[in-house]
């Protein structure tokens, strides 16, 4: 079972208390953009092999959404941070 640190409760808790909510930092474009851009916003995700920024909700807990960076290869949650905060730079990130 994955252990996830909730940045609101400040506790590391079992995955069973959380629900996954898709990729983080997907910005909604202005509705006047082209159909292709809108399609990309709706459906196209980065799907990386490695660290992935994603949204989680502490559904059976404080109820808050927050962001996590999870390595899609090892399934290890590298860090979590509150919703609205910018994506942290991890050691080994290519600038």
């Amino acid at each position: 079972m994955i252990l996830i640190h909730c940045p609101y409760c400040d506790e590391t808790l079992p995955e069973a208390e959380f629900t996954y909510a898709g990729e983080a930092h997907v910005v909604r474009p202005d509705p006047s953009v082209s159909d292709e851009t809108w399609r990309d916003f709706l459906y196209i995700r980065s799907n990386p092999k490695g660290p992935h920024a994603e949204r989680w909700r502490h559904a059976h807990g404080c109820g808050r959404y927050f962001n996590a960076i999870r390595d899609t290869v090892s399934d290890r949650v590298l860090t979590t941070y509150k919703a609205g905060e910018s994506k942290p730079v991890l050691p080994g990130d290519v600038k």
Partner: protein
Amino acid sequence: MADVTIRTLTRAARFSVRCGEADRTAAAEALGVPLIGTIGAIAVAGPRRSLCLGPDEWIVAAPLEDGPAMTAAFAASPAVGSLVEVTNRDVTFAITGPGGEELLAHGCPRDLSKLAPGRGVRTVFDGVSVVLWRFDDRFEMTVWRSYVPFVEALLSAAAREMQAA
């Protein structure tokens, strides 16, 4: 064999309280019980008590007959927030005895040895969202009433298993 007893508590007045940091003190005054701003913290004032569930969310429990007065006091107070009476939504089980932690481990994935007495949490019990309070001598687990037959069956089966071991 670890000893454990499960019983259903009589109904209490229960409220779900949501309010921002600025209104917390006024809301607590109206309800007659402190609302602590740390997730997991229980506050007790006489027979009334509160538990912080989220950054702006508390559950308040009080004797059944106090309910109407608390609703009126909150309505009259300057606090901006929401008070929802959930008395009829919830059923609470009291789990006493040294086997309480082991019993709850049958459905709760949390490490309950890290939940100190005087603290509480909203967590999950075999897929059901529950509110768990820990006191010196017991756990109290509050479950939505539609899940009660399921949770009760699971708890009593687990208790029987522990007895047989």
